[in-house]
């Protein structure tokens, strides 16, 4: 998707076309950006507003003639920086607590299987919560499909640091699975 988007964004920059392209991108990526902002600690309302703001900034940057080779990487970088700014103004950090009690993965599965899967995901969630902030951010961005240089650019760290944070995160998550 990135290559295609980069292509369309790098060509015709007529105003209606540009608006249509950013709108298309917004529709494709807004849920991912919103989810990332929630994991960053923003509450739902601020996360939604911030996600919208990110795409308006994308439009403004493109309109100014900025060449954006990798729109998805750019969006997450701006979302991260903007999200942190918003977070400083928020009184308390949003904490994600999934309701595993009422959670069902698939009605077709047996109750035993459901229970096992629920316990597994609950354990996995606790392990994710126990990762360091930076490990979590790298992991969530990687889950969104960003490559190491893009994650590094979003978080302002080197690519090798991204690799190290991800390695540590995966090692911890693997340990939890083996327990």
């Amino acid at each position, binding site marked *: 998707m990135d290559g295609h988007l980069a292509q369309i964004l790098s060509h015709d920059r007529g105003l209606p076309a540009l608006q249509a392209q950013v709108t298309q991108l917004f529709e494709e990526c807004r849920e991912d950006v919103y*989810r990332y902002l929630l994991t960053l600690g923003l509450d739902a309302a601020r996360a939604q507003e911030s996600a919208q703001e990110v795409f308006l900034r994308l439009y403004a940057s493109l309109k100014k003639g900025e060449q954006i080779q990798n729109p998805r990487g750019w969006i997450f970088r701006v979302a991260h920086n903007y999200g*942190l700014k918003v977070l400083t103004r928020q009184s308390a950090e949003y904490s994600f607590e999934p309701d595993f009690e009422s959670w069902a993965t698939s009605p077709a599965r047996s109750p035993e299987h459901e229970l096992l899967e629920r316990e597994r995901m609950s354990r996995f*969630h606790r392990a994710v919560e126990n990762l360091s902030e*930076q490990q979590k951010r790298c992991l969530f961005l990687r*889950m969104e499909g960003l*490559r190491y240089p893009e994650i590094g650019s979003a978080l*302002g760290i080197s690519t090798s640091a991204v690799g190290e944070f991800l390695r*540590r995160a995966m090692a911890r998550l693997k340990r939890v699975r083996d327990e």
Partner: protein
Amino acid sequence: MSNWHSQHLEDGLALRYLDGELPARKARQVRKHLEACWQCRAEMEDLQTTVADCMRYRKQVLATQLPEPPNAWADLSRGFDGIDVEMAAEPFWKRLTHFPPSLMWSAASVAVAVLVCFAYYQLRETPSVQAAVLLKRAIAAEQARPAGPRRVHIRTGKPTSAAVLFAAAHYDSADPLSARSFSTWRAQLPEKRDEIENAASCSVGQTGRPLGTPVQGCYLLRTSTTTGDVASASLTLRTADLLPIEGRLEFRDRNWIEFTDLSEVPDLHDGSPVASLGELPVRPAVPSRPAAIAPGETASISDELQVLSALHGIGADLGDPVEVKLSNGHVEVSGVGVSAERQRQIHRALDSMAHVEVAFSDPGAAPAPVQATAPERAPVFSAPSSATTKLQTRLEQQLGGRAEMERFSSRVLDWNEAAMARAYALRALAQRFSQDQQSAMTPDDRRVLRQMAREHISALQAHITGMEAALTPILSALGAAAPPPPQPPAFTSWQAGAEQVFRSSRRVELLLSTVLGVTSGEKPSADLPTNLLSALADLRVNLDQCNSLLAR
């Protein structure tokens, strides 16, 4: 990592392999190792399962359990209109900077020149920090800062020599992480566009602090251009003192080179800077103390030498991220990212020694001190492109096909990697113990020092012999002339010789990677095979001379 057939994959390599983040050559080595090693393959599958768990967690938990957006998604068109109106209301000179380049170029050249001059004048008058002003201030801060060595970690996107990339970029390789170098590069661009971001949320050094607390800010300066090999370059400056902490050059062929100040690499939560990651440092080590310390109750230069010798005995001086420093009356041995097995070996080798403190970084611990390294002007070579393609085709034919070529390249590059590790280690030793310091040593210490240096040379000679034996018949068949007799080396101490050996090794490495197609370049040259044989001969002569100086 030196022996792929007998050692298992290092921790951390597997994930980067799965994520496609390894250089092509290393990825090939990992793939080959996985074919042969059941244990690593099982671990790789285990890791793949954890990746699958992550994605299941994303799909089943994050996507379903995170709160839905409280409102319907807004129609952005109103926001677009607001931006259009806002930009239309901006002063003319400011709007000029928003024009897409295509429109800029389509305007009449004289008019554009006049407008740009006018816009430049206006921009210069604005209070906001502009690129040129920012760089000027950073250069002034650089000059005011006490001169001292910095350790810079250099990484490249593709397996290309840093020297080649810097040369292609016309960027000063002697001191890449400086405002002056960036400014010089920027000044030579016929066309450029700057972006500056004052990032209060710059994440460098942010890890481990609670979210929302003030963090060290940065200026992110990015200059892009439509001419030359480099598409854009960026420099991150610490706001407090305008110290450059990270730089990056992006090439049009999607290659890149990144240079990071190791003292700024985030490590706070896990206590592990990434000094241990990536390739061997391009920069040299400098002595860990200013001068020899007289023997006494506290650690002396002799103790430091014994520690180095013990590490040398277990091969921990060949690229392991282990630092040795004489400080506060102790020999401090530290390391980050050192495997548990290696840590045990090092403890076993050093724990019985007096005045030695061994500390490896664990998650949550303070970062280990990193050894300072001084900048060095890397040699610059121009490598061919079209000629090398032809050369590689001929090489493939000569060797009997692509598979054979792959095997041949792997073998020779492995030798070269091992040779480079020795060249680095030899030079580090020479820089740590100068000729004067060596003269002040006891005869026993001198013997230990010379023995270590000789062992590095001997191993290097063996690797060179292997490379020569493999390369000479092939390169000769491709038309390489017998190299002229090398000039006798002019150095008179083994320490100076070690530097020369290092430079010769680098030259061999560059030419070899060009011949094998690992590095791409600009200028075609039919002399590559001859030059490579000649560089090998030079290296051998330097090694022989160095060895004879050590024997005196």
